[in-house]
């Protein structure tokens, strides 16, 4: 069944304390190549049948109203992915 992927990221100007904590932990494990980490959320909305434009619109609306809070987050992706056969 096709899925709609929604990615939500903290706004660039909002301090991301979780990302900062991860950025602090990485070098302690020897992963020294990364300057910054930001942590977001990924939602997968499974659709029964075909993804129509109407369903995709619903996903966009859900992303803007429930899945993200526009005060602190941006929706960075709403995209259909098909499972490999």
């Amino acid at each position, binding site marked *: 069944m096709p899925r709609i992927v929604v990615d939500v990221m*903290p706004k660039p100007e*909002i*301090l991301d*304390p*979780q990302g900062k904590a991860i950025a602090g932990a990485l070098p302690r494990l020897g992963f020294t190549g990364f300057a910054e980490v930001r942590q977001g959320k990924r939602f997968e909305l499974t659709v029964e049948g075909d993804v129509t434009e109407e369903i995709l619109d619903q996903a966009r609306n859900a992303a803007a109203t*429930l*899945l993200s*809070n526009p*005060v*602190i987050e941006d929706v960075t992706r709403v995209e259909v992915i098909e499972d490999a056969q």
Partner: protein
Amino acid sequence: MTVETPLIGYSNAEVVDAGLSGIRVGVVTFPGTLDDRDALRAVRIAGGTGVQLWHGDHDLKDVDAVIIPGGFSYGDYLRAGAISRFAPLMEQITAAASGGSLPVLGICNGFQVLTEAHLLPGSMVKNNHLHFLCKDQRLKVENSTTAWTSAYADGSEIVVPLKNQDGQFVADERTLDELEGEGRVVFRYVGGNPNGSRRDIAGITNEHGNVVGLMPHPEHAVEAGFGPDSSASGEVETRGGVDGLGIFTSVLQKLVNK
């Protein structure tokens, strides 16, 4: 759902003003709410009548004011307050409060619910130090004209418990300037910023002054023996701090004088 059964025992605290008992203050319970009983208790100690409200109901039971208490409604899943905001009772509350008539107080998780419901601007993110923090916190009351703060003098200080993980108040600079310019910062942290909140903001109000949200917990500082170990005026007996009581007497006095 109408009779409150205290977990420990009936409060021995003296009721502040028995003439206020006709004022009905609803306290909303969501799945995962923790501090609803403390809020009901605070209303009773202040002299009012606490009314339990269930998030799934459509009926505000003719209450004169509403408190959205602290806790972890819906487990804080998605974002704190994000799912609660769409509860049937919240639609009633939003409709009654947005025009300026129904006094609404959001405490901690309740504050988060009010921002998600767009009754108050801004939002809360994780504390800048990432820890759950529980401490007695000193606050400055900067606006004593709201429905919930008239018992205090402008600039007076109170000490009430603060306990949360997502307590960092954030908003864009324009919104922050607007809040400051319109005198809508109601409470500010004093003695150090405990969570990274922008401009030390602990609580705000809407344009009408009927909706107030704050992260610290005044309902935990209303009865000697169960409050913080200090008050703004200095040392008190162990757990003797009752600085939060004025929040609840404020709204009762306002409503009885209406």
